[in-house]
């Protein structure tokens, strides 16, 4: 401010109008311009600092201790939790399950979402009705959904196996097998998220200029050609966004596998951890075995993995949908 004060008089001399020294009001309005934007965005950053950043850093701190819930003075053990974690077969098993469920859900989900969006952007009767329709599964309660699906996939009295038997197939013990349980959980995830992602993609599709499609039509391009050469490349930023959000969600999957377990309230992820995900293992470690230090280490490793996979996704999606420059 002092600098401004010094310069201001010179400016006045140079200036045409001879105005008096900058008044308080004048100065206030200048500060207003400089400082206000920060004040307007501050609430988010303050809240994020309290409920986001602080827990993140505190978790890192806790992960350096052997900390059992209720301990009065936990012992500092450095990186031992992480050492133990990298040798923990249950953790690797959980990570494999997570990635497997993530791939089984995200890949078909995004493909279906884009196709669904393409269908919805066509001229339909009652377009709004259809669009609301695909969002309905997302609006339903996740827990209710989990309970209903767990019932549908019941090995003995489940509707799915009932249908399979009606058409002459053998019933599947969905909870027992590794692949079958992952598939069932992926179906649950897709049921909820496909419509949601389809709507986001649809919004981006609607924003593509009509002229491009008209020009392509005149050039004699068919619907498929237009979809692959115009629509997809122009959807790139949206697809990156959707991929990254579903990656973050997919790697944190928790509710579906927890409710899918036949044993109520269990965090085992099946009789032999065949569908225990990383977050489920994290929860079990923290709130069933009360090993908060070890659980914090799991949380941080999961965080790093999500960041890495999101980065890889970002570059891959960019590559796949890149518009070739000639």
């Amino acid at each position, binding site marked *: 401010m002092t600098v401004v004060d010094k310069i201001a008089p010179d400016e006045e001399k140079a200036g045409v109008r001879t105005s008096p020294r900058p008044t308080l009001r004048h100065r206030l309005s200048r500060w207003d311009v400089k400082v206000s934007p920060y004040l307007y965005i501050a609430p988010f950053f303050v809240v994020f600092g309290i409920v986001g950043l602080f827990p993140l850093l505190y978790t890192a701190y806790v992960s350096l201790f052997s900390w059992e819930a209720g301990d009065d003075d936990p012992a500092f053990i450095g990186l031992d939790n992480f050492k133990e974690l990298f040798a923990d077969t249950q953790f690797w098993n959980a990570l494999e399950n997570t990635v497997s469920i993530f791939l089984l859900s995200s890949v078909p989900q995004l493909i279906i979402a884009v196709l669904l969006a393409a269908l919805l952007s066509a001229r339909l009767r009652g377009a709004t009705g259809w669009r609301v329709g695909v969002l309905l599964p997302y609006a339903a309660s996740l827990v209710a959904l989990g309970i209903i699906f767990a019932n549908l996939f019941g090995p003995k*009295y489940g509707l799915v196996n009932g249908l399979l038997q009606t058409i002459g197939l053998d019933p599947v013990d969905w909870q027992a097998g590794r692949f079958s349980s992952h598939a069932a959980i992926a179906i649950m995830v897709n049921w909820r998220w496909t419509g949601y992602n389809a709507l986001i993609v649809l919004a981006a599709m609607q924003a593509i200029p009509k002229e491009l499609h008209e020009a392509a039509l005149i050039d004699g391009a068919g619907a498929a050609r237009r979809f692959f050469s115009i629509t997809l490349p122009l959807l790139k930023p949206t697809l990156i966004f959707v991929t990254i959000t579903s990656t973050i969600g997919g790697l944190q999957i928790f509710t579906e596998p927890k409710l899918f377990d036949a044993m109520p309230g269990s965090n085992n992820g099946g009789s032999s951890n065949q569908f225990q995900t990383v977050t489920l293992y994290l929860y079990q470690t923290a709130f069933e075995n009360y090993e908060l230090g070890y659980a914090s280490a799991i949380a941080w490793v999961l965080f790093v993995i999500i960041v890495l996979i999101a980065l890889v996704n970002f570059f891959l999606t960019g590559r796949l949908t890149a518009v070739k420059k000639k």
Partner: protein
Amino acid sequence: MRSIRNGLVLALGITMTTFGLAACGGDDGGAPAASDPNAKVELSLATFTEFGYEELIPEYERLHPNIKITHRKTGQGGPYHQDLITKLAAGSGLADVTAVEEGHLSNVLDKGSKFNDLPKIGPAEASPDRWLGWKYDAAKTKDGKVIGYGTDIGPLAMCYRKDMLEAAGMPSDPEAVKPLFATWDSYFAAGDQYVTKTGGKAWFDSAAQNFNAMVNQLPTGYIGNDDKPTLESNQGIKDAWTKVTDAVAKGQSAKLTAFSNEWNSGFKQGAFATKVCPAWMLGVIEEHSGPENAGKWAVTAAFPGGGGNWGGSYLTVPTQSKHPKEAAELAAWLTAPEQQIKAFKAKGTFPSQVKALEDPALLSETDAYFGGAKIGQLFAEQAKKVAKPQYKGPGDGQIQENASSPALQAVEQGKSADEGWTQLLDAAKKITR
């Protein structure tokens, strides 16, 4: 949190202005309302599954107009106790009167400093001789505090489907079936017979239910008196494992995980003919089998291996409570013989109080759903067959829920008995390390 503090400050302010009190230092969190006999004291009570207290709570409120009770009921024991330990660690959020199941009691006794010593703050009538000796002693910490008043016990009997045994051409009268349920060997032999005669129908609901009962009967369970795991050397557990997994291999299990949705449906569908039946299971069976199956279930005063105890709980008063004295009074009243008899009538929770066990009301109690069986007398008889309950060391409940039950479920889903046993050992090691 802040609103609570503001509320306290406000309450303090009001009491100070009303009574013209001088500011009193050093009184941390002691509710000022206690100084006013007409102020409402709000108590919370947390229970899981069925304690049978629904009608007792309004009764207590009628007797004590200054008390208001909020009852928090949870369906499942497992998640309830996770929540309990978490809140114990957090230092807030527990109910004034908090129920603890005996399988989880050892984990709580470890943290005895976080609970009130009930003989110190509770009323005089809640003296040790109110309860069965072993029941009272089990709630003692290593330094001699008593942190819980016993509510119920779970003496074991056998429940079975009369109509299904009859259809299989087997004895079905409560007296005539006793030989079938004399020992575990005779029980599984009868199971073989049943499976053969019915062309492959299941004899029991799930292996884990029987295995838990078998392990509970042993002199030493998963954890020894020295708080060390015994699985590696405990031959009794290994034998029980072999017997149960053999029965699974022979098709005796309906493979329905206890308390799962499928298990609930299984009762309605008549998926299994017999069921390990602690006293509190009667209410569960009635609820899930529904009125259409009334009279088909029966219970008999016999249990393989003599007798046993599965479950039963305590009411504790955590030090978090703002009204420990009132909470202890409520807990003492709820666990008095008269009230436990009422709870028994409501939900079949079997009383642990000496007087209640001799009560004519209990001895004459019948259950219409179970064909008018004299269940009071029957379970009192079964309770006498329990020598003393097994010592439950820290981690015992977790081994049952996260090691042995899942391992048996894995065997039912197709793993070999040996693979299952290895899985049990590994999981138990992880829990007790």
